[in-house]
């Protein structure tokens, strides 16, 4: 009988080929995390600390923000980075605590589906939003709608 023995210190055979998704998920959590610290702290500061905080938030306030491309991009980044970060975190928890393959598949599917639906919905809302909707009560819309 003959056996083939690898030369000492030869690299071991690659068992899996292709993209290492778990690694990229790990990197994504850290990269998006750093950006989200800035985006969400900024979001909380502007909405809850400036002016009269939570009491000032109504249609006119948010319309005023979303009429500005700066906040459109800010909110889009926040939406995509946070929802994918959160869904991937939930995937980790499902992997840790759900052992039945069927339940696991179901929960992974629910996470993926809800993420896609909310990303599409949120993005459409940001870019199809009209801050001065026709026929709206003038007392409810932003002050800059008067001139239109």
């Amino acid at each position: 009988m003959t056996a083939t023995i690898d030369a000492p210190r030869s690299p071991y055979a690659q068992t899996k080929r292709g993209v290492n998704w778990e690694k990229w998920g790990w990197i994504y959590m850290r990269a998006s995390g750093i950006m989200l610290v800035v985006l969400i702290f900024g979001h909380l500061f502007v909405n809850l600390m400036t002016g009269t905080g939570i009491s000032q938030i109504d249609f006119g306030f948010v319309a005023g923000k979303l009429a500005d491309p700066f906040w459109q991009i800010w909110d889009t980044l926040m939406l995509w980075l946070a929802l994918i970060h959160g869904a991937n975190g939930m995937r980790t928890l499902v992997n840790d605590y759900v052992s039945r393959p069927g339940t696991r598949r179901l929960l992974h599917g629910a996470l993926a589906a809800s993420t896609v639906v909310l990303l599409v919905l949120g993005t459409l809302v940001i870019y199809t939003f009209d801050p001065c909707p026709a026929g709206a009560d003038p007392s409810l819309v932003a002050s800059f709608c008067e001139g239109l």
Partner: protein
Amino acid sequence: MPAKVTGAEGTAASATTSVPEPRRSVLSTGTLYRGREGMWSWVLHRITGVAIYFFLLVHILDTALIRVSPEAYNAVMESYKNPVMGIGELFLVGAVGFHALNGLRIILVDFWKVGTRHHRTMFWGVLGVWAVLMIGFTPRHLMNVFGG
């Protein structure tokens, strides 16, 4: 004259070494894992993460109402302004603050050369910075909620 003793027998004959009592373990004798700072930071990171995720789902949906009508959006925002929700927002901001700061600590543990050595100190640092942020945020937010 006795023969010269050799080997194992000889060792056994002369061995009168006293073996000290084993020191009592300073670790807990229970079976519950007590991981101290490292474990608690992990537990809190998970709990706050799940809480923030479910809030995010609701928050994307409530913000989407801005695309429906000013009345619909203002109606749901009113519910965020009642005192019970105001306290809830305090917990939410606390959870976001902890998750953000502890996330930065995780990144330092992963990438900073001496991160693992200082992970405990950094956990207390996280709690310290978190406390400072909450001392700044809490009175301001409570004024906005209860100050009318």
